[in-house]
C-alpha cells in the first residue's frame, strides 16, 4: 500500500512547527501504524533526513506512551485502541493521512509528535493513591469486596494514562483521567479514608496545570483506548461537591 503523509514537524517547544509532506511506499497492510512510520523513518535516514520523532514503547496498547492524532482523531480511527494498535489495513491505498501530536495546553510539544504529559504524573502525585506503608497491610482476604464493586473499580483502573481524553476534548479537560482514578480508589473500601482529600487535591492540581473544564462533549470517552466510561465523571463531580461542602463547613467551624 502507498500513502501520502502530512506530518507535524517541530524542532522543539520554542520553535514553530508545520506540516511536511512524506510518501509512505510499499507498506504491508498487516503493518501497524507505527511500523509504517518506522519504514518511513528508515527511508528518511537513508536519504540523510532526520527521522520523525514519536513516542512508543510497549506497542501492544497498554503502556500509554504512543500519542498521535491521526486524521484529526486522537489515536486515529476505530474504537478502543491506542495508535500502536492501529493497522494499515484500515486505510485506503493512496489515502492522504494527517499526523499530529496530542494537543492540549498542559501537554507542551517536545519535538515533532512527542509531547510532555508530566502534568498527568503531577495530578496523581497530588493524591491519586491509597497511603499504605509497605509491610503494614492486613491479610488480603480480611476485607471482602463484592465482585460487582471490584469489577467496576477495575473498569476505572484500566486507564492507561495516555492523555487522549485531554487531547480530544475541545476544552483540553483531563476530567476523564481524574475521574478514572477517583472512581477506582473511591469505590474500594481501602480508598475511603483519603477519599475527600484525594478528590480535592487532584481536581485543584488539574485546574492549576491548565486543563479545561468538562462541558459534556464526550469526545474523551469516544477516543479512550481503555473504554473508560464518562459516567465516572459524574462520580467525580459528586465526590468533589461533597468534598467542597465539607471543606466549607469545616471553615465555618
Amino acid at each position, binding site marked *: 500500500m502507498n500513502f501520502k503523509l502530512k506530518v507535524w514537524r517541530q524542532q522543539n517547544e520554542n520553535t514553530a512547527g508545520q506540516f511536511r509532506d512524506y510518501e509512505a511506499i510499499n507498506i504491508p497492510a498487516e503493518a501497524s501504524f507505527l511500523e509504517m512510520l518506522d519504514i518511513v523513518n*528508515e527511508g528518511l535516514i537513508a536519504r540523510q533526513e532526520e527521522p520523525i520523532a514519536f513516542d512508543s514503547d510497549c506497542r*501492544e496498547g497498554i503502556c500509554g506512551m504512543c500519542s498521535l492524532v491521526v486524521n484529526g482523531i486522537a489515536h486515529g480511527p476505530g474504537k478502543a485502541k491506542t495508535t500502536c494498535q492501529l493497522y494499515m489495513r484500515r486505510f485506503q491505498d493512496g489515502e492522504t493521512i494527517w499526523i499530529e501530536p496530542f494537543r492540549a495546553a498542559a501537554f507542551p510539544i517536545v519535538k515533532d509528535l512527542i509531547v510532555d504529559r508530566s502534568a498527568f504524573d503531577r495530578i496523581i502525585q497530588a493524591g491519586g493513591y491509597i497511603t499504605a506503608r*509497605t509491610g503494614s497491610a492486613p491479610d488480603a*482476604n480480611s476485607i471482602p469486596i463484592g465482585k460487582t464493586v471490584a469489577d467496576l473499580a477495575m473498569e476505572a483502573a*484500566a486507564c492507561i494514562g495516555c492523555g487522549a481524553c485531554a487531547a480530544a476534548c475541545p476544552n483540553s479537560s483531563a476530567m476523564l483521567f481524574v475521574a478514572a482514578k477517583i472512581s477506582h480508589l473511591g469505590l474500594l473500601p481501602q480508598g475511603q479514608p483519603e477519599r475527600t482529600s484525594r478528590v480535592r487535591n487532584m481536581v485543584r492540581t488539574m485546574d492549576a496545570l491548565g486543563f479545561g473544564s468538562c462541558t459534556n462533549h464526550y469526545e474523551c470517552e469516544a477516543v479512550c483506548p481503555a473504554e473508560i466510561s464518562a459516567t465516572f465523571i459524574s462520580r467525580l463531580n459528586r465526590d468533589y461537591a461533597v468534598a467542597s461542602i465539607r471543606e466549607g463547613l469545616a471553615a465555618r467551624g
Partner: protein
Amino acid sequence: MTTQLDARIPSGPLADKWTKHRAESKLVNPNNKRKFDILVVGSGLAGASAAASLAELGYHVKCFCFQDSARRAHSIAAQGGINAAKNYQNDGDSVFRLFYDTIKGGDFRSREANVYRLAEVSANIIDQCVAQGVPFAREYGGLLANRSFGGAQVSRTFYARGQTGQQLLLGAYQALSDQINMGGVKMFPRSELLDLVIVDGHAKGIVVRDLKTGEISSFPGDAVVLATGGYGNVFYLSTNARGCNVSATYRAYKRGAFFANPCYTQIHPTCIPVGGPYQSKLTLMSESLRNDGRVWVPKNKGESRRPDQIPEAERDYYLERKYPSFGNLAPRDIASRSAKEVCDEGRGVGPGGLGVYLDFAESIRRLGEQTIRERYGNLFDIYHNITGENAYQVPMRIYPAVHYTMGGLWVDYNLMSNVPGLHVLGEANFSDHGANRLGASALMQGLADGYFVIPCTIANYLATQLGKKVSPDRPEFRAVEEEVRGRVKKLLSIKGKRSATSFHQELGLLVWEQCGMARSRDGLKDALQKIGPLREEFWENLNVLGGQQELNQSLEQAGRVADFLEFAELMCLDALEREESCGGHFRVEYQTEEGEAVRNDKDFCHVTAWQYTGPDSKPVANIEPLVFENVKLAQRSYK
C-alpha cells in the same frame, strides 16, 4: 584469575533463613537514614516498589526511567497474574510447594535460599497490593479469586483481568507518587543511565543522559539500585517493549559487576506469529489462555484444510499426548520447544508454517462463550486487532517468542552484586528463576525484591558507609562523564550508511537462529564468528542523524544497539560453554531420544558469573556452586 563468589546465604534451616537474616541484618537508625542518597534506576515493579519503600523508611531516593513517566515501565505489559502461596483455594498449596515448583521449573539452576524467600514473602505481596487498592479479580462473595498457571498443579495465581502487570505497576507507581509528593523521592523521567561511577571499588554514582535536552550529567549516591529489566531485545524481535535494553546492566558489567548465566533466556510459547520483516515487536498472548485453550497441529504434514475441517482423529494435541499430567499447562520452555519440533516436522500452521493452533472450541462448548469472554476478552480483542481473525470462531495461531531473560547481574542473598553498593533487582538480576521462569513469577519476584527484600538488606551495606559520603568533585565522576561524552560523540561522527535498526535486526536474526530455542556447538561458534565483524561494521558504517543537545531517538537507539552487539557475544559464549541442556537453554547435543533436555549436574550445577576483562580479551568465568540441601535433583518430568 577467578574470584570466589560468596552468596552470603544465612546458615540454618531453609525455612528459618530469612527470619534469621532479618533479625541479624544491620540497621540504620532513622536519623542516619536521612543522610543516605540511594539512586534507583528503573521504575518498573522492582524499581518503583523499591524507590517507594526505601523513601518510606526515610532514605533520600532519586529514581530514573527512560520513559516519559514512571508508570510506563514494561512491567505494565504483564498479563496473566502473580503467584502467591496463600492457599486460599484449600488445594494443598504452601510456601514449600511454591518454592519447590519454582526450583523445579527453573530446572534446578537457582539458589535454594533466594527462591524460598521469594515464596515466603509472596503472601505479603498480595496483602500489600490489596491495601494499595489493586483491583484483583474476586469471587461473588467478595474474596479473592485464583487461576492456575503453567508448571503448577494448584491455583495460586492472583490476577486483574488480563492486565495484572498494569494494575500491580500502577499500585507501585501510586506508592511512588505518594513519596514524590512527600519529598522522599525525586523522579527523573526521560533519563537514561549511560554508565556507572565506581569510587574506591564501590558503586557511588551514575552518569545519565537527559533524553529531552541531551544533557549528560552525573549523580552521586551512597548506593545504586539497578532495576532495569532484562535483555530480551538482543533478539530484536521479542515481546519486550521497544525501549527495553541491556545498557544499564551491561555498563555495570563493564565496570566490574559479574554477569550471571546470560544464556538463560525464556521463549514464551504463546505469542502471535511473526508477520514479516516490517514487524517491530511480537505480541504475547497470556499463558493463562492455556487453562482453557488446547494446543494442536494437524497430524499430516502440509495440511491445507481450514482448522474446522480437520476431524478430531487427524489432530495432534501434542502437549496432552506427550505430557498427560500437565498437558497444555506444561512449563514454558517445554511448550515452546514442542511447538518448534512440530513446526520443524512440517506440521506448523499459518503463513510460513511457523505456528500452532490454540483452540477454544471445546471450552466454549463446555463453559459458554460468555465465560471465555469474561476470562480472556481483552486477549481475544488484541488477537483480533492484530490478525483480523475472530478466535471465538477459529483457533488462534501462536508461536514462541523471546519473552524474558533469567540471566542477569550476579547478586548475593542481599541482592548486592560483587561490586559493593551496587544492588540489582527484578529481571535485571539472575537470582530466582534458574534456567526457566514459571508463569506469574516475574511479577512476584519484582515486587518481592522491591517491597520486602531490598528495604531490609540494603542496610547491611549502608551501615558500613556512615561518614563515607563521596564528594561529587571526585575525579572519577568527571572521568566517566568524559568517557560517556566521547562515546556519544563517536556514535554521531561515524556518518556511515546504515541505521542502528538495520544492525539490530541483523544481530537479532543471527542470535535467534543460533542462540534461540535450540542451540548447537557449531551454531554458537558460527554466531561468535559473525558478531565481531558486525560490531566492527557498526562502528564504521552507522548513520545517526541529528545532534547530541536535543531529543534524538536515533542516538538513544544507537547506544543501546552498540551494547547489544557486545552483549550478544557474552550470551553466545555462555551458551557455548554450558555443555548441557537445562530449562530455556537447550543444547541439541544434550537431549534424550524423545528430545527432552539432559542436564549435567556433575559439571554444571553452578552459576557462571562472567567477569569483564577488557575489550579484546575473553571474560573470566567465575563459578558459584549451587548446593541443594532441601530438594533432590531430578530430571524434570511433567508427563
